[in-house]
Protein backbone atom coordinates (compact mmCIF):
# COMPACT_ATOMS: atom_id res chain seq x y z
CA UNK A 1 0.00 0.00 0.00
CA UNK A 2 1.06 3.55 -0.56
CA UNK A 3 -0.66 6.49 1.11
CA UNK A 4 -1.15 9.86 -0.63
CA UNK A 5 1.64 11.64 1.26
CA UNK A 6 4.15 8.92 0.45
CA UNK A 7 2.94 8.77 -3.15
CA UNK A 8 3.44 12.54 -3.48
CA UNK A 9 6.95 12.35 -2.02
CA UNK A 10 7.93 9.55 -4.41
CA UNK A 11 6.46 11.42 -7.37
CA UNK A 12 8.21 14.64 -6.38
CA UNK A 13 11.55 12.82 -6.23
CA UNK A 14 10.79 11.30 -9.63
CA UNK A 15 10.25 14.77 -11.10
CA UNK A 16 13.57 15.98 -9.68
CA UNK A 17 15.25 12.93 -11.20
CA UNK A 18 13.55 13.56 -14.54
CA UNK A 19 14.50 17.23 -14.46
CA UNK A 20 18.26 16.75 -14.29
CA UNK A 21 18.77 18.51 -17.59
CA UNK A 22 17.49 22.07 -17.74
CA UNK A 23 13.84 21.81 -18.65
CA UNK A 24 11.36 24.46 -19.57
CA UNK A 25 9.50 26.83 -17.27
CA UNK A 26 6.58 29.05 -18.23
CA UNK A 27 4.64 31.40 -15.96
CA UNK A 28 1.20 32.83 -16.64
CA UNK A 29 -1.32 34.96 -14.83
CA UNK A 30 -4.52 32.98 -14.16
CA UNK A 31 -7.36 34.51 -12.20
CA UNK A 32 -5.00 37.24 -11.00
CA UNK A 33 -2.54 34.70 -9.62
CA UNK A 34 0.76 33.40 -10.97
CA UNK A 35 0.81 29.87 -12.34
CA UNK A 36 4.26 28.39 -12.91
CA UNK A 37 4.60 25.33 -15.12
CA UNK A 38 7.90 23.43 -14.87
CA UNK A 39 8.55 20.76 -17.48
CA UNK A 40 11.27 18.10 -17.42
CA UNK A 41 12.26 18.31 -21.08
CA UNK A 42 10.27 19.94 -23.82
CA UNK A 43 8.14 17.14 -25.29
CA UNK A 44 5.29 17.48 -22.80
CA UNK A 45 5.52 21.28 -22.83
CA UNK A 46 4.96 21.26 -26.58
CA UNK A 47 1.68 19.42 -26.02
CA UNK A 48 0.37 21.26 -22.96
CA UNK A 49 1.46 24.88 -23.32
CA UNK A 50 -0.67 25.86 -26.36
CA UNK A 51 -3.77 25.82 -24.16
CA UNK A 52 -2.25 28.61 -22.02
CA UNK A 53 -0.62 30.66 -24.78
CA UNK A 54 -3.34 33.34 -24.61
CA UNK A 55 -2.62 34.18 -20.97
CA UNK A 56 -0.37 37.01 -19.80
CA UNK A 57 3.19 35.69 -19.49
CA UNK A 58 4.85 36.58 -16.19
CA UNK A 59 8.52 36.82 -15.24
CA UNK A 60 10.21 37.33 -11.92
CA UNK A 61 7.12 37.03 -9.72
CA UNK A 62 6.79 34.28 -7.10
CA UNK A 63 4.29 31.64 -8.15
CA UNK A 64 0.98 31.07 -6.37
CA UNK A 65 0.89 27.57 -7.85
CA UNK A 66 3.71 25.53 -9.33
CA UNK A 67 2.97 22.44 -11.41
CA UNK A 68 5.89 20.10 -12.12
CA UNK A 69 5.31 17.99 -15.22
CA UNK A 70 7.04 15.06 -16.82
CA UNK A 71 6.46 11.91 -18.79
CA UNK A 72 8.17 8.60 -18.18
CA UNK A 73 8.98 7.81 -21.80
CA UNK A 74 11.01 10.88 -22.63
CA UNK A 75 12.57 11.31 -19.17
CA UNK A 76 13.31 7.66 -18.44
CA UNK A 77 11.96 8.11 -14.90
CA UNK A 78 8.98 6.12 -13.69
CA UNK A 79 6.91 5.90 -10.52
CA UNK A 80 5.05 3.01 -8.89
CA UNK A 81 1.43 2.84 -9.97
CA UNK A 82 -1.67 1.47 -8.23
CA UNK A 83 -2.90 -2.00 -9.09
CA UNK A 84 -5.45 -1.75 -11.87
CA UNK A 85 -8.46 -3.99 -11.42
CA UNK A 86 -9.80 -5.64 -14.55
CA UNK A 87 -12.41 -3.41 -16.20
CA UNK A 88 -11.94 -0.54 -13.75
CA UNK A 89 -12.03 2.93 -15.30
CA UNK A 90 -12.30 6.55 -14.23
CA UNK A 91 -10.17 8.06 -11.51
CA UNK A 92 -8.82 6.88 -8.15
CA UNK A 93 -9.05 9.89 -5.87
CA UNK A 94 -7.55 10.55 -2.44
CA UNK A 95 -8.69 13.59 -0.48
CA UNK A 96 -6.76 15.38 2.25
CA UNK A 97 -4.00 17.99 2.61
CA UNK A 98 -2.30 16.18 -0.24
CA UNK A 99 -4.69 15.26 -3.00
CA UNK A 100 -4.06 12.68 -5.64
CA UNK A 101 -5.99 11.62 -8.71
CA UNK A 102 -4.90 8.63 -10.76
CA UNK A 103 -6.57 8.48 -14.15
CA UNK A 104 -6.90 4.72 -14.41
CA UNK A 105 -6.93 4.20 -18.17
CA UNK A 106 -4.53 7.01 -19.07
CA UNK A 107 -2.26 6.14 -16.07
CA UNK A 108 -1.85 9.85 -15.46
CA UNK A 109 -1.13 11.27 -12.02
CA UNK A 110 -2.34 14.67 -10.82
CA UNK A 111 -1.34 15.57 -7.26
CA UNK A 112 -1.51 18.71 -5.17
CA UNK A 113 0.04 19.67 -1.84
CA UNK A 114 -2.12 22.48 -0.41
CA UNK A 115 0.42 23.69 2.11
CA UNK A 116 3.21 24.15 -0.46
CA UNK A 117 0.93 25.05 -3.38
CA UNK A 118 2.95 22.53 -5.31
CA UNK A 119 1.41 20.18 -7.84
CA UNK A 120 2.70 17.27 -9.89
CA UNK A 121 1.54 16.05 -13.27
CA UNK A 122 2.93 12.81 -14.66
CA UNK A 123 1.92 10.84 -17.70
CA UNK A 124 3.54 7.62 -18.92
CA UNK A 125 4.17 8.65 -22.51
CA UNK A 126 3.69 12.06 -24.09
CA UNK A 127 3.03 10.36 -27.42
CA UNK A 128 -0.12 8.83 -25.92
CA UNK A 129 -1.37 11.94 -24.16
CA UNK A 130 -5.14 12.27 -24.57
CA UNK A 131 -6.29 15.13 -26.76
CA UNK A 132 -8.70 16.30 -24.05
CA UNK A 133 -5.73 16.69 -21.72
CA UNK A 134 -4.05 18.92 -24.31
CA UNK A 135 -7.18 21.02 -24.66
CA UNK A 136 -7.75 21.43 -20.92
CA UNK A 137 -4.60 20.46 -19.01
CA UNK A 138 -4.38 20.03 -15.23
CA UNK A 139 -8.16 20.32 -14.67
CA UNK A 140 -8.14 18.51 -11.35
CA UNK A 141 -5.15 20.44 -9.99
CA UNK A 142 -6.62 23.78 -11.04
CA UNK A 143 -9.93 22.86 -9.42
CA UNK A 144 -8.27 21.96 -6.09
CA UNK A 145 -6.00 25.01 -6.12
CA UNK A 146 -8.71 27.50 -7.07
CA UNK A 147 -11.15 26.06 -4.51
CA UNK A 148 -8.51 26.62 -1.83
CA UNK A 149 -8.55 30.31 -2.78
CA UNK A 150 -12.35 30.56 -2.68
CA UNK A 151 -12.54 30.55 -6.47
CA UNK A 152 -14.75 28.18 -8.43
CA UNK A 153 -13.62 26.06 -11.38
CA UNK A 154 -16.74 25.46 -13.46
CA UNK A 155 -17.86 23.53 -16.50
CA UNK A 156 -19.04 26.36 -18.71
CA UNK A 157 -18.19 28.56 -21.68
CA UNK A 158 -17.71 32.30 -21.38
CA UNK A 159 -17.96 35.22 -23.80
CA UNK A 160 -18.28 38.96 -23.35
CA UNK A 161 -16.43 42.24 -23.45
CA UNK A 162 -14.16 43.96 -20.96
CA UNK A 163 -17.17 45.58 -19.32
CA UNK A 164 -19.11 42.37 -18.86
CA UNK A 165 -20.01 38.96 -20.17
CA UNK A 166 -21.96 35.79 -19.67
CA UNK A 167 -21.30 32.27 -18.49
CA UNK A 168 -22.83 29.71 -20.86
CA UNK A 169 -23.90 26.59 -19.01
CA UNK A 170 -25.33 23.17 -19.75
CA UNK A 171 -24.31 19.59 -20.17
CA UNK A 172 -22.10 18.49 -23.07
CA UNK A 173 -23.97 18.89 -26.35
CA UNK A 174 -26.20 21.69 -25.09
CA UNK A 175 -24.66 24.19 -27.52
CA UNK A 176 -22.49 26.26 -25.19
CA UNK A 177 -19.24 25.53 -27.05
CA UNK A 178 -20.79 26.24 -30.44
CA UNK A 179 -22.25 29.50 -29.21
CA UNK A 180 -18.95 30.57 -27.64
CA UNK A 181 -16.98 29.70 -30.79
CA UNK A 182 -19.53 31.53 -32.94
CA UNK A 183 -18.56 34.70 -31.07
CA UNK A 184 -14.97 34.53 -32.34
CA UNK A 185 -14.63 37.37 -34.83
CA UNK A 186 -17.70 39.20 -33.51
CA UNK A 187 -17.98 42.09 -31.06
CA UNK A 188 -17.89 39.59 -28.19
CA UNK A 189 -14.60 38.24 -26.92
CA UNK A 190 -13.87 34.58 -26.16
CA UNK A 191 -12.79 33.39 -22.73
CA UNK A 192 -13.72 29.72 -22.62
CA UNK A 193 -15.67 27.00 -24.35
CA UNK A 194 -15.68 24.33 -21.65
CA UNK A 195 -13.99 25.37 -18.40
CA UNK A 196 -13.25 28.62 -16.64
CA UNK A 197 -12.69 29.98 -13.14
CA UNK A 198 -15.24 32.16 -11.38
CA UNK A 199 -14.24 34.73 -8.81
CA UNK A 200 -17.31 35.18 -6.62
CA UNK A 201 -18.32 38.06 -4.42
CA UNK A 202 -20.24 41.29 -4.86
CA UNK A 203 -18.86 41.69 -8.38
CA UNK A 204 -18.33 38.20 -9.75
CA UNK A 205 -15.73 37.75 -12.47
CA UNK A 206 -14.94 35.14 -15.10
CA UNK A 207 -11.31 34.19 -15.67
CA UNK A 208 -10.14 32.35 -18.76
CA UNK A 209 -7.87 29.33 -18.30
CA UNK A 210 -7.64 27.67 -21.70
CA UNK A 211 -7.83 29.04 -25.23
CA UNK A 212 -9.01 25.73 -26.63
CA UNK A 213 -12.28 25.23 -28.46
CA UNK A 214 -13.97 21.95 -29.34
CA UNK A 215 -16.58 21.20 -31.97
CA UNK A 216 -18.02 18.21 -33.78
CA UNK A 217 -18.66 18.15 -37.52
CA UNK A 218 -22.21 19.48 -37.21
CA UNK A 219 -21.04 22.44 -35.11
CA UNK A 220 -18.09 23.18 -37.39
CA UNK A 221 -20.57 23.55 -40.25
CA UNK A 222 -22.18 26.37 -38.23
CA UNK A 223 -18.84 28.14 -37.64
CA UNK A 224 -17.70 29.45 -41.04
CA UNK A 225 -15.28 31.94 -39.47
CA UNK A 226 -13.32 29.03 -37.95
CA UNK A 227 -13.57 26.57 -40.85
CA UNK A 228 -9.91 26.95 -41.78
CA UNK A 229 -8.76 26.58 -38.18
CA UNK A 230 -10.72 23.36 -37.73
CA UNK A 231 -9.49 21.98 -41.05
CA UNK A 232 -6.17 20.79 -39.58
CA UNK A 233 -7.13 20.41 -35.94
CA UNK A 234 -6.53 17.73 -33.31
CA UNK A 235 -9.30 15.16 -32.95
CA UNK A 236 -10.24 14.02 -29.46
CA UNK A 237 -11.50 10.61 -28.34
CA UNK A 238 -15.13 11.61 -28.90
CA UNK A 239 -14.40 12.65 -32.48
CA UNK A 240 -14.51 16.35 -31.69
CA UNK A 241 -11.98 18.68 -33.28
CA UNK A 242 -9.88 20.80 -30.93
CA UNK A 243 -8.30 24.14 -31.85
CA UNK A 244 -6.55 26.87 -29.90
CA UNK A 245 -8.15 30.25 -30.48
CA UNK A 246 -4.90 32.03 -29.58
CA UNK A 247 -3.31 30.47 -32.68
CA UNK A 248 -6.07 31.51 -35.07
CA UNK A 249 -7.78 34.62 -33.71
CA UNK A 250 -5.73 35.98 -30.82
CA UNK A 251 -7.59 39.31 -30.99
CA UNK A 252 -10.77 37.48 -29.94
CA UNK A 253 -9.31 36.36 -26.61
CA UNK A 254 -10.65 37.87 -23.42
CA UNK A 255 -8.78 36.87 -20.26
CA UNK A 256 -11.22 38.18 -17.62
CA UNK A 257 -14.47 40.08 -17.42
CA UNK A 258 -17.21 40.94 -14.92
CA UNK A 259 -19.96 38.33 -14.99
CA UNK A 260 -23.33 39.93 -15.81
CA UNK A 261 -25.57 36.92 -16.38
CA UNK A 262 -25.77 33.17 -16.77
CA UNK A 263 -27.17 31.79 -20.01
CA UNK A 264 -28.26 28.22 -20.74
CA UNK A 265 -28.36 27.72 -24.52
CA UNK A 266 -30.77 25.27 -26.08
CA UNK A 267 -30.45 24.27 -29.71
CA UNK A 268 -33.79 24.32 -31.50
CA UNK A 269 -34.91 23.82 -35.08
CA UNK A 270 -35.25 26.81 -37.39
CA UNK A 271 -33.08 29.91 -37.38
CA UNK A 272 -34.81 32.21 -34.90
CA UNK A 273 -33.34 33.08 -31.51
CA UNK A 274 -35.19 34.15 -28.42
CA UNK A 275 -34.66 34.22 -24.71
CA UNK A 276 -36.66 33.71 -21.56
CA UNK A 277 -35.90 34.12 -17.90
CA UNK A 278 -34.46 30.93 -16.43
CA UNK A 279 -35.64 30.05 -12.92
CA UNK A 280 -32.67 29.81 -10.54
CA UNK A 281 -33.36 26.16 -9.75
CA UNK A 282 -33.11 25.28 -13.43
CA UNK A 283 -29.91 27.27 -13.74
CA UNK A 284 -28.38 25.39 -10.82
CA UNK A 285 -29.42 22.10 -12.39
CA UNK A 286 -27.74 23.14 -15.64
CA UNK A 287 -24.50 24.25 -13.96
CA UNK A 288 -23.83 22.22 -10.83
CA UNK A 289 -24.16 18.52 -11.77
CA UNK A 290 -21.88 18.68 -14.79
CA UNK A 291 -19.30 20.62 -12.79
CA UNK A 292 -19.46 18.45 -9.66
CA UNK A 293 -19.46 15.09 -11.41
CA UNK A 294 -16.19 16.01 -13.16
CA UNK A 295 -14.45 17.46 -10.12
CA UNK A 296 -13.53 15.31 -7.14
CA UNK A 297 -12.84 17.33 -4.02
CA UNK A 298 -14.53 20.34 -2.37
CA UNK A 299 -17.87 19.40 -3.88
CA UNK A 300 -20.02 20.57 -0.99
CA UNK A 301 -18.35 23.99 -0.96
CA UNK A 302 -18.45 24.15 -4.76
CA UNK A 303 -22.18 23.49 -4.76
CA UNK A 304 -22.73 26.19 -2.16
CA UNK A 305 -20.65 28.67 -4.19
CA UNK A 306 -22.54 27.97 -7.41
CA UNK A 307 -25.85 28.30 -5.57
CA UNK A 308 -24.82 31.62 -4.06
CA UNK A 309 -23.82 32.92 -7.47
CA UNK A 310 -27.10 31.92 -9.08
CA UNK A 311 -29.09 33.58 -6.29
CA UNK A 312 -27.52 36.90 -7.16
CA UNK A 313 -27.27 37.05 -10.92
CA UNK A 314 -29.81 37.06 -13.79
CA UNK A 315 -30.23 33.73 -15.53
CA UNK A 316 -31.60 33.23 -19.04
CA UNK A 317 -32.56 30.37 -21.32
CA UNK A 318 -31.47 31.15 -24.88
CA UNK A 319 -33.09 29.25 -27.73
CA UNK A 320 -30.72 29.11 -30.68
CA UNK A 321 -31.49 27.88 -34.18
CA UNK A 322 -29.15 26.77 -36.94
CA UNK A 323 -27.17 30.02 -36.97
CA UNK A 324 -25.53 30.49 -33.56
CA UNK A 325 -24.13 33.88 -34.60
CA UNK A 326 -27.74 35.15 -34.56
CA UNK A 327 -27.62 34.85 -30.77
CA UNK A 328 -24.97 37.57 -30.43
CA UNK A 329 -27.35 40.56 -30.32
CA UNK A 330 -29.34 38.78 -27.61
CA UNK A 331 -26.18 38.09 -25.63
CA UNK A 332 -25.14 41.74 -26.00
CA UNK A 333 -28.54 42.84 -24.69
CA UNK A 334 -28.31 40.47 -21.72
CA UNK A 335 -24.82 41.74 -20.93
CA UNK A 336 -26.05 45.34 -21.11
CA UNK A 337 -28.96 44.53 -18.79
CA UNK A 338 -31.56 45.10 -21.50
CA UNK A 339 -34.34 42.77 -22.50
CA UNK A 340 -32.92 40.38 -25.10
CA UNK A 341 -36.23 40.03 -26.93
CA UNK A 342 -37.53 42.73 -29.25
Amino acid at each position, binding site marked *: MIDPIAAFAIAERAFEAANVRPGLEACYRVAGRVLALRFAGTALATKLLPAFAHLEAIEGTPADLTICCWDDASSGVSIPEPIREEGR*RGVEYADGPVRIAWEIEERTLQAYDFRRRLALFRTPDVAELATWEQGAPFRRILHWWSAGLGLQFVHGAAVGTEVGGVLLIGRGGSGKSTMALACVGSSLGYAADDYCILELGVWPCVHSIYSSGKADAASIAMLPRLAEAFHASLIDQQGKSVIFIAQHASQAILRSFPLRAIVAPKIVSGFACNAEVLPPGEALRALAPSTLFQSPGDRMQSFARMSALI*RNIPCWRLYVGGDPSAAQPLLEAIIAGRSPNP
Partner: protein
Amino acid sequence: MRYRLNDRDVVSEVLDGEVIVIHLQSGTYYSTLASGADIWNALLSGRSVEEIADCLARGAEEERAHIAAEVARFVSELTAENLIFSTDSDPIGRPNDLGTAPAFVTPELHKYTDMQELLLVDPIHEVTEEGWPLRDTTEQ
Protein backbone atom coordinates in the same frame (compact mmCIF):
# COMPACT_ATOMS: atom_id res chain seq x y z
CA MET B 1 -39.39 8.63 12.75
CA ARG B 2 -36.80 11.32 12.07
CA TYR B 3 -34.33 11.56 9.22
CA ARG B 4 -31.01 13.13 8.38
CA LEU B 5 -29.30 14.03 5.13
CA ASN B 6 -26.94 11.46 3.60
CA ASP B 7 -24.32 14.16 3.82
CA ARG B 8 -21.47 11.88 2.75
CA ASP B 9 -22.89 11.49 -0.75
CA VAL B 10 -25.54 14.17 -1.12
CA VAL B 11 -25.58 17.96 -1.40
CA SER B 12 -28.70 20.09 -1.48
CA GLU B 13 -29.69 23.73 -1.80
CA VAL B 14 -32.96 25.66 -1.84
CA LEU B 15 -33.27 28.24 -4.60
CA ASP B 16 -36.39 30.33 -5.01
CA GLY B 17 -38.52 27.65 -3.31
CA GLU B 18 -37.06 24.78 -5.34
CA VAL B 19 -34.96 22.15 -3.59
CA ILE B 20 -32.10 20.84 -5.73
CA VAL B 21 -30.49 17.63 -4.49
CA ILE B 22 -27.45 15.98 -6.06
CA HIS B 23 -26.32 12.44 -5.30
CA LEU B 24 -22.62 12.65 -6.01
CA GLN B 25 -22.01 8.91 -6.20
CA SER B 26 -24.88 7.87 -8.46
CA GLY B 27 -24.75 10.83 -10.84
CA THR B 28 -28.44 11.44 -10.29
CA TYR B 29 -29.93 14.77 -9.30
CA TYR B 30 -33.38 15.75 -8.16
CA SER B 31 -35.69 18.68 -7.65
CA THR B 32 -38.85 19.20 -5.70
CA LEU B 33 -41.16 22.16 -5.25
CA ALA B 34 -44.06 23.31 -3.09
CA SER B 35 -45.01 20.68 -0.49
CA GLY B 36 -42.04 18.52 -1.53
CA ALA B 37 -39.72 21.38 -0.64
CA ASP B 38 -41.64 22.03 2.59
CA ILE B 39 -41.29 18.38 3.63
CA TRP B 40 -37.59 18.29 2.68
CA ASN B 41 -36.82 21.41 4.71
CA ALA B 42 -38.82 20.18 7.69
CA LEU B 43 -37.11 16.76 7.63
CA LEU B 44 -33.66 18.36 7.56
CA SER B 45 -34.60 20.63 10.45
CA GLY B 46 -35.26 17.53 12.57
CA ARG B 47 -39.04 17.21 12.33
CA SER B 48 -40.55 13.75 12.34
CA VAL B 49 -42.85 12.48 9.60
CA GLU B 50 -45.76 12.63 12.04
CA GLU B 51 -45.05 16.23 13.02
CA ILE B 52 -44.81 17.26 9.38
CA ALA B 53 -48.08 15.52 8.49
CA ASP B 54 -49.83 17.13 11.49
CA CYS B 55 -48.62 20.56 10.48
CA LEU B 56 -49.54 20.19 6.80
CA ALA B 57 -52.98 18.79 7.68
CA ARG B 58 -53.79 21.92 9.70
CA GLY B 59 -53.66 24.06 6.62
CA ALA B 60 -55.30 21.70 4.17
CA GLU B 61 -58.78 20.60 3.39
CA GLU B 62 -57.76 17.01 2.74
CA GLU B 63 -58.10 14.38 5.38
CA ARG B 64 -55.15 14.06 7.68
CA ALA B 65 -54.83 10.37 6.78
CA HIS B 66 -54.40 11.23 3.10
CA ILE B 67 -51.77 13.86 3.80
CA ALA B 68 -49.91 11.57 6.21
CA ALA B 69 -49.87 8.84 3.57
CA GLU B 70 -48.51 11.23 0.93
CA VAL B 71 -45.80 12.50 3.29
CA ALA B 72 -44.85 8.91 4.16
CA ARG B 73 -44.74 7.96 0.46
CA PHE B 74 -42.55 10.94 -0.37
CA VAL B 75 -40.19 10.21 2.52
CA SER B 76 -39.97 6.57 1.41
CA GLU B 77 -38.99 7.76 -2.04
CA LEU B 78 -36.27 10.00 -0.61
CA THR B 79 -35.01 7.09 1.48
CA ALA B 80 -35.07 4.67 -1.46
CA GLU B 81 -32.96 7.13 -3.44
CA ASN B 82 -30.43 7.21 -0.55
CA LEU B 83 -30.88 10.94 -0.10
CA ILE B 84 -31.81 10.69 3.59
CA PHE B 85 -31.35 8.14 6.37
CA SER B 86 -33.60 7.41 9.32
CA THR B 87 -32.08 8.32 12.64
CA ASP B 88 -32.90 7.46 16.24
CA SER B 89 -31.26 10.53 17.65
CA ASP B 90 -33.31 13.53 18.64
CA PRO B 91 -32.52 16.78 16.91
CA ILE B 92 -29.96 19.01 18.60
CA GLY B 93 -32.02 21.65 20.40
CA ARG B 94 -35.71 22.05 19.84
CA PRO B 95 -36.52 22.48 16.15
CA ASN B 96 -38.06 25.77 15.22
CA ASP B 97 -41.82 25.82 14.97
CA LEU B 98 -42.90 24.97 11.45
CA GLY B 99 -45.10 28.03 11.43
CA THR B 100 -48.22 28.40 9.36
CA ALA B 101 -48.79 25.34 7.24
CA PRO B 102 -48.49 26.06 3.53
CA ALA B 103 -51.21 24.77 1.22
CA PHE B 104 -50.69 21.07 0.63
CA VAL B 105 -50.11 19.72 -2.84
CA THR B 106 -49.06 16.18 -3.59
CA PRO B 107 -45.25 16.18 -3.28
CA GLU B 108 -43.30 15.12 -6.34
CA LEU B 109 -39.64 14.20 -6.59
CA HIS B 110 -38.33 14.93 -10.07
CA LYS B 111 -35.42 12.67 -10.90
CA TYR B 112 -32.78 13.48 -13.54
CA THR B 113 -30.44 10.77 -14.81
CA ASP B 114 -29.05 12.52 -17.88
CA MET B 115 -25.66 13.09 -16.25
CA GLN B 116 -25.12 9.49 -15.16
CA GLU B 117 -23.23 8.66 -18.33
CA LEU B 118 -20.61 11.19 -17.31
CA LEU B 119 -19.95 9.22 -14.14
CA LEU B 120 -20.16 5.89 -15.94
CA VAL B 121 -17.49 7.00 -18.40
CA ASP B 122 -15.31 8.65 -15.78
CA PRO B 123 -16.31 7.38 -12.33
CA ILE B 124 -14.60 8.76 -9.24
CA HIS B 125 -13.37 6.08 -6.84
CA GLU B 126 -12.58 7.65 -3.50
CA VAL B 127 -9.83 5.84 -1.61
CA THR B 128 -9.16 5.94 2.10
CA GLU B 129 -6.17 7.65 3.66
CA GLU B 130 -4.39 4.28 3.56
CA GLY B 131 -4.02 4.80 -0.17
CA TRP B 132 -3.60 2.18 -2.87
CA PRO B 133 -2.03 -1.23 -3.32
CA LEU B 134 0.86 -0.88 -5.72
CA ARG B 135 1.35 -2.68 -8.99
CA ASP B 136 4.46 -4.78 -9.50
CA THR B 137 6.11 -2.76 -12.26
CA THR B 138 8.30 -5.71 -13.27
CA GLU B 139 5.13 -7.24 -14.80
CA GLN B 140 5.23 -4.72 -17.64
